[in-house]
């Protein structure tokens, strides 16, 4: 029983991380209509930037600077690569493009930082369990939860109360009308892509605290976030959040009884959701509804 409690809790914490990844992915998916296969790549960029910057800025400085820089790189990528594809309505083009971009980022990381794994040192405060009984709640995991909660709430407030946020929400509903009303939708989409990449960069720094840095580290992390989006519902940011938590919890519970299935269970959940409620739990109606 204790094991079930531990594993469920542990799964939820893991789910928080999936949710953070899924949030950025969902943001880009809704306004830019891009299934961003390079999201894992931007995560890796964020992680490696944090590694390089932490020598100068310390961990906390890198935690802020690396995601912002990732966002700026995202802006350039959007301007140079994604924007020319908006005209083509088939999202397959941008899918293939970002897939290629993911491979390029992985190889560039390997060229710049090498194929050998690198460690990101995190402060000692974060590096130990918060309580002796619940030893799996480490300082770093508390940080992950806090940052994800802050990001989700911040994103919610920004989308609700800032001008850009309101325009993004309107753009998700009907981009043509927003454009006709005089909003520069190119700028809007670029900004939105940049925001999405900031989330990826943030997830990267946080992942680097728990995992060693390797060029392909994004690949294994991105799949669960795609699943989170599909379970939560394509088009809904709230859904992405809940989707992430749900699959984490499901994996945690499964681990208690049948560990071998803990990886498969999230795909099983995806299958169930697709059969019973194809638009996902909170699918396609809009933001935070």
């Amino acid at each position: 029983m204790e094991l079930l409690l531990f594993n469920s809790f542990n799964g939820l914490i893991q789910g928080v991380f999936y949710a953070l990844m899924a949030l950025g992915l969902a943001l880009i998916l809704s306004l830019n209509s891009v299934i961003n296969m390079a999201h894992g790549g931007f995560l890796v960029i964020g992680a490696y930037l944090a590694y390089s910057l932490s020598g100068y800025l310390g961990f906390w400085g890198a935690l802020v600077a690396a995601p912002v820089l990732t966002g700026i790189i995202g802006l350039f990528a959007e301007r140079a690569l994604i924007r020319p594809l908006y005209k083509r309505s088939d999202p397959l083009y941008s899918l293939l493009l970002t897939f290629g971009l993911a491979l390029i980022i992985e190889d560039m990381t390997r060229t710049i930082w090498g194929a050998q794994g690198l460690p990101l040192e995190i402060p000692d405060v974060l590096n130990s369990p918060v309580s002796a009984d619940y030893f799996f709640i480490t300082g770093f995991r508390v940080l992950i939860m806090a940052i994800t909660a802050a990001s989700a709430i911040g994103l919610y407030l920004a989308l609700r109360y800032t001008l850009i946020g309101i325009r993004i929400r309107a753009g998700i509903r009907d981009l043509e009308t927003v454009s006709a009303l005089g909003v520069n939708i190119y700028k809007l989409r670029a900004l939105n892509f940049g925001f999405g990449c900031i989330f990826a960069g943030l997830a990267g720094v946080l992942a680097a605290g728990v995992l060693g840095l390797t060029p392909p580290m994004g690949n294994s992390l991105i799949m669960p976030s795609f699943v989170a989006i599909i379970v939560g519902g394509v088009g809904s940011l709230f859904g992405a959040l809940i989707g992430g938590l749900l699959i984490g919890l499901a994996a945690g519970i499964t681990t208690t009884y049948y560990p071998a299935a803990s990886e498969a269970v999230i795909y099983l959940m995806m299958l169930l959701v697709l059969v019973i409620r194809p638009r996902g739990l909170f699918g396609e109606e809009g933001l935070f509804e």
Partner: protein
Amino acid sequence: MKRKFSRRQVIKTGAILGVSTVFSPPILSFAQGETPIRVGMHDPLTGTYAAEGESEVRGAKMALAEINAKGGLLGRKLDLVIEDDAANAGLAAQKAHKLIEQDKCSLLMGAVSSATALSVNQVAHDQKTLYMVTGGHTDPVTGSQCHWTTFRICTTTYMLAAGLASTLYKKFGGKWYFITPDYAYGHTLQAAYSKLLKDMGGTELGNSLAPLGSTDYSSYLIKAQQAKPDVLILLVDGQDLVNCMKQAAQFGLTKKFAIGGGLTELEVLKALPKEAKLGWWTVEWWWDQPNTPHVKEWVASYQKAYTDGSYPSARTWFGYAGLHSLGLGVTKAKSIESAKVAKALEGLVLPPEIALQPNKVYFRAKDHQLMSSEFPGEILSDGVYPNLFKVSEIVPGDKIALTEEQAGCKLDYAT
């Protein structure tokens, strides 16, 4: 409202992710001779074992340069064709076919993952092509699934366990919990430890199987904590070991139990953050052997060839010894025919400048397993690259290996 994308397309991306690891261009090194002898090498250049794969390739390239500088083999240049197998068994088999059929390689070598070693072992046998396994440790390669075509440089999983098990038992006690990678290498290594532990009178408290390439080890670590073992044995390797150690350290488990494992490597040690630098492990070769001739010179020659400040690892030595062994076999057989080279390699003793370790290193005739040493020891918690590991002894391979009979190999020459 314009419909911009469909759920179906989101799902399709999943399928594309699945096949994404399949494509990567081969790296060719061209020889100048008219009809070079070609050796095909498969190793993971991407994925969880990429760093290990690169080290093996570096070692093989050193041997290649040395052999060609001395005029090649049988008066012909030697050429190395390298393919990325991404540590994927199916892909490795496919690349092995390509190396033999398309690139016309006479001999094969390579492998970091045991799964790829087993699959190429089969292809090489079907194609009657000699295959030098550099770094896939699982027992069956030179045991129950051995073939006349296959030789192996790295030690067996049984030897890895046997080199360290008694030290762990005597130092820390007999209640062990395992975290094991869920594929051939892990299964055989765990089975070996399990048997050795039982023979010594200890108890196995549990064994968690973790898929290769796992990123989250928390659920396995929770189970391990509940079992309260004397020793937590981490059999995962490569980047997986880095991730597992890092998380175990953050959970505070490294302070509660002794940590031991199977294999560790310079590549892994380098990637460990300071809090995860601890425990008892085995390496299969170490760059710092002050009393062994030729080692210092070899390290220097490595650093002349690769100026990135790195040191050669066991993997580098696998690649180096692997290609040199093939060269020695070809020279002795005066032929590149696999059957003749295989006969020449049986019982062959590696000369000290290639063996680079104090004990006698030779290919056993009956199962084609190289009898090289184990270097058990402790990770230095305050170590700085490359001084990250303290070798406690160098155990001769033939002292700890299963006998040829126990290994269960029956070579199948009838062709």
